[in-house]
């Protein structure tokens, strides 16, 4: 090891360390939101008597605070229907005191779906996705049923909580973005993100 080589290595090492000292914090700064979890929001949307089991009632909730209209979304809420569970025993049972809150975010690429009472279907305006009364896909490109929100009753009010996704059999899984399959091998191909809460 010559004197020249020692100095060469030292200069390159110092330069690399100086570059990393600037670059690494900047990159970490930009990537930080990927690893942060937002606090859970629970919002009251009405009394249990406001909702029936044969039709959805739209409610507007805030999913991102402090950005005005862009942070709001529509949720379709109904009471659980034990009759539906008798018709399709393979699905998770619904009790008469459960509340089902369907997210309007299309499971294809995230456009807002609307509920059409005459057909008892959810229809997406962007690419023609169609969902049945329970949010299961019956037409178009969506890859999984409509997402749902956790619900609870607190102080006589129905409250809407964090969002979660469901498999084709309506079993809850952790929330993921539209366009991502659920269940089976897809749980590994779309790995858990630190930014969303686990499945209920």
């Amino acid at each position, binding site marked *: 090891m010559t004197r020249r080589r020692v100095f060469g290595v030292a200069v390159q090492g110092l330069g690399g360390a100086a570059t990393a000292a600037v670059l690494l914090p900047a990159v970490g700064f930009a*990537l930080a939101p*990927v690893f942060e979890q937002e606090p859970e929001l629970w919002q009251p949307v009405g009394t249990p008597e406001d909702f029936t089991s044969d039709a959805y009632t739209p409610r507007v909730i805030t999913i991102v605070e402090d950005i005005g209209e862009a942070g709001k979304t529509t949720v379709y809420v109904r009471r659980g229907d034990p009759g539906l569970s008798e018709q399709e025993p393979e699905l998770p049972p619904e009790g008469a005191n459960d509340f089902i809150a369907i997210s309007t975010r299309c499971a294809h690429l*995230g456009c807002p779906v609307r509920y059409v009472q005459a057909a008892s279907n959810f229809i997406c305006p962007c690419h023609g996705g169609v969902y049945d009364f329970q949010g299961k896909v019956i037409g178009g490109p969506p890859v999984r049923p409509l997402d749902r929100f956790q619900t609870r009753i607190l102080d006589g009010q129905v409250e809407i909580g964090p969002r979660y996704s469901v498999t084709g059999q309506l079993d809850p899984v952790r929330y993921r973005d539209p366009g991502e399959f659920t269940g089976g091998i897809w749980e590994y191909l779309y790995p858990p993100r630190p930014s969303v809460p686990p499945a209920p």
Partner: protein
Amino acid sequence: MKFPQQLIPGPLKRPSAPGERGNGSGNGNGNGAGPVDQLKEVPADLVGWVDERTGGSGFLTGMLYRKVPKGTNWFYTLGSATLFAFVVQALTGVFLAMYYTPSADEAYASITHLTNDVFLGEFVRGMHKWGASLMVILVFLHMGRTFFFGAYKYPRELNWVIGVVLLILTLVMGFTGYLLPFDQRSFWATVVGVNINGTGPIIGPYLSDFLRAGPEFGATTLARFYAIHMLLVPGLLIALIGAHLYLVVKLGTTAPPWVSAERKPKSLREEQV
């Protein structure tokens, strides 16, 4: 069309070929001429002053008077046209930024104000909006010219690779810029675009979290898109365009495929003998 010789300052005149008479690089300094003639010498003197201290005229004359192959035609201007479209985008973008507010509450209002109230605002915004589509079209035409003329072959493969990166960065500019007006169309189009990114296996979900700065479209999403659109990607674009042009000047342009290389069969035969 020839540029009038007397308008070109001395140091930038075409270097004379060996055996040719000098074309006046040793300009007289106008001794004994009237004030008007002395004034005419000012540009040449200025250029000479800068050239004496930078030596830039050698590079400039080498670039401006470089040899181009026979058969060069209008298709060879598509690259310059793309560069011009980029310069238009950069200029209009800088001025749009003077009126634009990248916050979810105020972005739409600032765009409406810019378009409807500011003098010539609609025109400047229109240049940026339509220029964006034009630039994407020109990039693809330029790429098609390079492909069909075989201009990507040795030794220009690296320039093709740089060009492909420039194409991707141009599309990133289109994607991030589309959100900025923050109306219904741009919001939902960006939701769909981010979710398409998210469908990639393994890294997709993290990529869309990075783009949105979180699991939902939030307060910093718009600022993030704005920073990518006006700081990060333009910087990369300018650096890579510089590298692209350097290689073009260094390697020269290719002849069209229908122009065959000049052969000198006589001298070849002589060598064989």
